[in-house]
């Protein structure tokens, strides 16, 4: 038998948990997702064709659950924005499209990546990632970490193609600005 549910927890639970916790910064939610993944997988055992490994198959189920969380959270943020409780977005550029003086990129010693083995920098980067709006972080992670196709991400997160590029752009502008501000 290709699938062995009796061994699922000992073989894959920690891996799935690590996968979830790096994408969703919430231990309890990550645990719930691992549990839901196994339970959902049990319902789908008959559909498993053995085209991928057990772990890949389980991870795919988990990924879908994570996308549901992204979607729900992004929805929640929209209502917040409507009530004007969201933080106002910084505009880095003037009317002509030129960098505003205070936002222009400066060299901060990260341009040459050999100098960048510091744990400290990693921590700041992580904090800056966490500050991104949920939907932006979701788009960014799916594109740059999971390397999913753009149209798949758009379909899964329900964003238009033009919105996708706007989000990718803004996420990077904010991430970079956050690093420049906090890393010196």
């Amino acid at each position, binding site marked *: 038998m290709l699938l062995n549910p009796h061994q699922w*927890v000992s073989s894959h639970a920690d891996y799935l948990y690590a996968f979830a916790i790096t994408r969703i910064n919430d231990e309890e939610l990550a645990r719930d997702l691992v549990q839901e993944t196994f*339970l959902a997988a049990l319902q789908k055992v008959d559909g498993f064709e053995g085209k991928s490994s057990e772990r890949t198959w389980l991870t795919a189920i988990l990924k879908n659950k994570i996308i549901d969380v992204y979607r729900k959270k992004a929805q929640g943020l929209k209502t917040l924005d409507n009530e004007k409780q969201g933080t106002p977005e910084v505009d880095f550029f003037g009317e002509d499209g030129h960098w505003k003086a205070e936002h222009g*990129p400066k*060299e901060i010693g*990260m341009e040459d990546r050999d100098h960048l083995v510091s744990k400290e*920098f*990693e921590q700041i980067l992580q904090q800056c990632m966490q500050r991104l709006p949920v939907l932006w972080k979701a788009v960014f992670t799916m594109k740059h970490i999971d390397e999913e196709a*753009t149209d798949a991400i758009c379909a899964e997160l329900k964003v238009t193609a033009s919105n996708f590029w706007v989000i*990718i752009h803004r996420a990077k502008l904010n991430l970079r600005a956050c690093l420049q501000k906090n890393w010196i």
Partner: protein
Amino acid sequence: MSYLKKIIHNCKQATYLIEKKSTTRLNFRETIELRIHLLGCSFCRIFSKQSRVINMMVKELFKSAMQANPRLDDTFKKELQDRIEEELNK
């Protein structure tokens, strides 16, 4: 403003193209526009370098977070396996 001047001044568009370029191919016109802009704009040249490093750093961040191997506690795991066995025996 002439077309060329617009390209030279528009850092917002240039950084947009830099991001687009990191994940997909730019068309001919976009490629030329970005090249002209970067020739004259040291800010966006810095942005471009930093953007690339950030992509690599974020990847490494995820990798090392996975390697740090956060683990579930044993009680939770035991309960979870029991739950699975229960479902299997239904």
